């Protein structure tokens, strides 16, 4: 029997009231409907002209900043450089590979203003991963930070990239500071390798664009005026569950819709033109890209960029020197902050709201945040494929262990393996439909067909819904372990193991087993010694049904993780399967 009505009646609707009641400023009626991201950027730049848009804050407090007008002017000039000097056309892909720094927004906005498609690249990628992503996206131009120039040099010849623009973390710092910082980075941190790349410097490129623009009296708006909301803005690469890195094609409409959705639920808490947001998450990741970079630019906020939030002391000067009102982060970031005396004894007084996403926010972390900082921490949920927000917790009415309610104009259902909706309280795969869902995977019709069915995005996450429409994540569908016909959710087992204080973290995976089909294996990282595999199994027996108890416990020094700190169970599984195959040979 279908339970469609359960979900399609949108039982969460009353909670939009909660979110909307928070809307106080007159600003909430402002026009948010733009046809393209450049239109939004130009409007915000015009409105907040003289205000500081971005500050890069180094661990020692060194900083550089750009105003809204500067970002607008420089990204215009960079757009001209891309179109006129490099001869790129609308729709051409341009990759950006750098940690958070002033060059990132200028390059990204310039690319979008040129009518090109932005490709965000993780700076920590290996040579092989870089080459794959450049070739898969067909990027012809690349803006890259000098710290990774040596990696690029090795692979450049084998990629589609023809033009390289080079920048640095210290870009647009004042000359003296820039010089000193470069010396420190080069000789103390040894972070800037030698290279022989034939590359244009970013400021030189912008200068060329600026001159061209003046000589030819070019109107940059002509590059992007005809962009429609259906046009692709961004190729955001994601491993997904299949492991092959593929580009989610996000349109201007997808990103702007998500921005509007964020705005309609959180906008009431954001005072236009006065907020200060700490961006410690990497902007090449979709969460910070949409929320920090786009949504808060639109709102005229001062964005404080931290190039590397690890170790967490790197954020201390940012908290010391700027009146941070918002922060976006993942569980590990909040966790790390809460372990610092300087943060817990003097939590930032200006802080208003913390936004959590990327991975499940632990209840203990959320509770401690509220006690220590005294302000809400709201968890949201989403995927790269959904620009990313699908669900959110109304600010001020957060529920523990819940990803909250669907964003406005988003339909969410829970379905079984046959795509039939499941009953109330039953676990099912979360599927979502709405204006923020991607067009598809770039050049991968088969993978797209598996993920997008009838407009519904199949998230691969198993969730449950409460009577009043709040959702709760149970686990990744792919990670589910089938033991003698019973479903075991690794999260549940990991949670049980985590209750042992000596345990730092664990990954629970299913391994093929002759008797039970699959067997539960736990890979555990201890934070202090004194715990045996038997102790863990014994503890699990008291907490879990017998079939969920790990059959084998293996201790590890560390576990593979994504850049935002999610434990990669698939990598653990791959390494285990690989080592067992070699053992058999």
């Amino acid at each position, binding site marked *: 029997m279908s339970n469609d009505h359960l979900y399609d009646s949108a039982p969460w609707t009353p909670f939009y009231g909660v979110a909307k009641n928070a809307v106080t400023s007159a600003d909430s009626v402002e026009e948010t409907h733009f046809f393209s991201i450049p239109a939004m950027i130009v409007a915000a730049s015009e409105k907040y002209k003289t205000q500081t848009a971005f500050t890069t804050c180094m661990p020692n407090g060194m*900083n550089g900043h750009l105003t809204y007008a500067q970002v607008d002017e420089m990204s215009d000039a960079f757009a001209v450089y891309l179109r006129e000097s490099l001869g790129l056309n609308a729709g051409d892909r341009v990759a950006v590979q750098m940690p958070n720094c002033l060059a990132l927004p200028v390059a990204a906005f310039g690319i979008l203003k040129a009518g090109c498609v932005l490709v965000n690249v993780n700076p920590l990628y290996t040579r092989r991963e870089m080459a794959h992503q450049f070739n898969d996206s067909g990027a012809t131009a690349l803006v890259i930070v000098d710290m990774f120039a040596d990696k690029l040099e090795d692979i450049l010849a084998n990629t589609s990239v023809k033009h390289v623009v080079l920048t640095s973390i210290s870009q647009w710092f004042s000359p003296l500071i820039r010089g000193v910082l470069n010396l420190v980075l080069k000789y103390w941190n040894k972070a800037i390798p030698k290279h022989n790349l034939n590359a244009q410097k970013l400021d030189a490129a912008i200068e060329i664009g600026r001159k061209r623009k003046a000589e030819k009296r070019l109107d940059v708006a002509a590059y992007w005026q005809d962009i429609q909301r259906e046009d692709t803005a961004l190729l955001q690469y994601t491993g997904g569950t299949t492991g092959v890195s593929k580009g989610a094609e996000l349109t201007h409409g997808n990103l702007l819709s998500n921005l509007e959705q964020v705005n309609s639920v959180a906008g009431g808490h954001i005072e236009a033109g006065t907020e200060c947001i700490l961006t410690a998450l990497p902007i090449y990741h979709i969460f910070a890209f949409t929320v920090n970079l786009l949504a808060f630019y639109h709102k005229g906020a001062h964005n404080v960029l931290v190039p590397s939030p690890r170790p967490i002391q790197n954020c201390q000067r940012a908290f010391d020197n700027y009146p941070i009102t918002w922060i976006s982060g993942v569980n590990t970031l909040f966790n790390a902050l809460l372990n610092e005396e300087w943060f817990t004894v003097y939590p930032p007084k200006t802080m208003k709201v913390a936004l959590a996403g990327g991975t499940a926010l632990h209840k203990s972390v959320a509770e401690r945040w509220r006690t220590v900082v005294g302000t809400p921490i709201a968890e949201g949920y989403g995927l790269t494929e959904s620009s990313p927000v699908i669900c959110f917790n109304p600010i001020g009415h957060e529920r523990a262990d819940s990803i909250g309610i669907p964003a406005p104009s988003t339909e969410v259902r829970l379905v079984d393996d046959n795509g039939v909706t499941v009953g109330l309280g039953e676990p099912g795969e979360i599927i979502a439909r709405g204006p923020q869902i991607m067009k598809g995977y770039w050049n991968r019709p088969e993978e797209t067909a598996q993920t997008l069915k009838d407009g519904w995005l199949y998230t691969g996450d198993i969730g449950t819904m409460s009577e009043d429409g709040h959702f709760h994540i149970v686990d990744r569908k792919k990670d589910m372990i089938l033991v003698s016909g019973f479903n075991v959710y690794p999260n549940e087992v990991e949670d049980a193991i985590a209750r042992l*204080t000596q345990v730092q973290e664990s990954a629970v995976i299913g391994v093929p087993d002759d008797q039970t089909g699959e067997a539960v294996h736990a890979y555990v990282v201890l934070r202090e010694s004194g715990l045996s595999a038997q102790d863990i199994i014994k503890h699990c027996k008291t907490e879990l049904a017998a079939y969920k108890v790990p059959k084998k416990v293996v201790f590890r020094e560390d576990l593979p993780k994504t850049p935002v700190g999610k434990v990669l169970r698939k990598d653990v599984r791959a390494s285990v399967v690989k080592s067992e195959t070699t053992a058999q040979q």
Partner: protein
Amino acid sequence: MLSPFEESLLSIMMVIIMFGMGASLTFKDFKLSMRHPQAIGVGFLSQYLLMPFIAFALARLLDLTIEQTVGLVLMGCMPGGTTSNIFAYFSKSLLSLSIMMTICSTLAGFILVPMWMAFYTQGIDDAFRIPPDQIARLLFLLLIPTLIGMWLRRKNANIGAIIELMGGLLGAVVIVFIVVTWVPRNWRLLAETSWQVYAAVILLGLFGFLFGYIFSRLLRLNPQKARTVSMETGIQNGPLAALIVIMTFTGETQQLILLIPVMYSLFIVLNSAWVTVIYRKITNREESARDQAKVEPS
């Protein structure tokens, strides 16, 4: 020893270094260090109870001459100096705590140094006292640049960072300079000095580090604070001791006693340098461990 010109040059450098140290600090850091006042109490005890006793015990065990005993006990009674702050900074210990301890121990030294000297060196008639203008000088050297550094950093984070880098760099240069030039300048003195004196001055610093750490840990200070106290305990104000000796004694006695502060000052820089490397590594390791650790239950 140093010429007057070199001495004033060193003073100016010290001012610049403390300027840089100040630029690495905020008032919050001081409030944090005062949040556990027992750390200062523990440091105080280890500096004024442990160190004089260690010095006295070493002098007895190594059978030092009367003059050397006086020198060593005086060394043990000394408060900390700016050198300890610089090493606290390099070893990523709590600089704010180190500075607070230096201030407290220097002020207290006014009363405690003559008292301990009278107690441990009974029978030697000369009265030991710290000249008040030296205390004022030290506090001035320490406090004013630190405060200006802090203020500048608050005004402009970029200038603050530059000053901090400069101070750190200069600190390293001074330390390397002392280590490299001291031996060739004083090889004759080094060659004539007995092994007992070597042992005494080296062990005084090392025992200071060791017992300062153990004592703090026993009194339940966290490891980073314990390392700060350890540094502060082991590193005594050598130049101040030398000055007191020069002002209190004359002639050959002066030269004999002076040997100890001079030798101590050399070896404490050498020993602090390697201890700093170790402490810094530990702090870095702790930082990354904290990064990973679970939130403590509220």
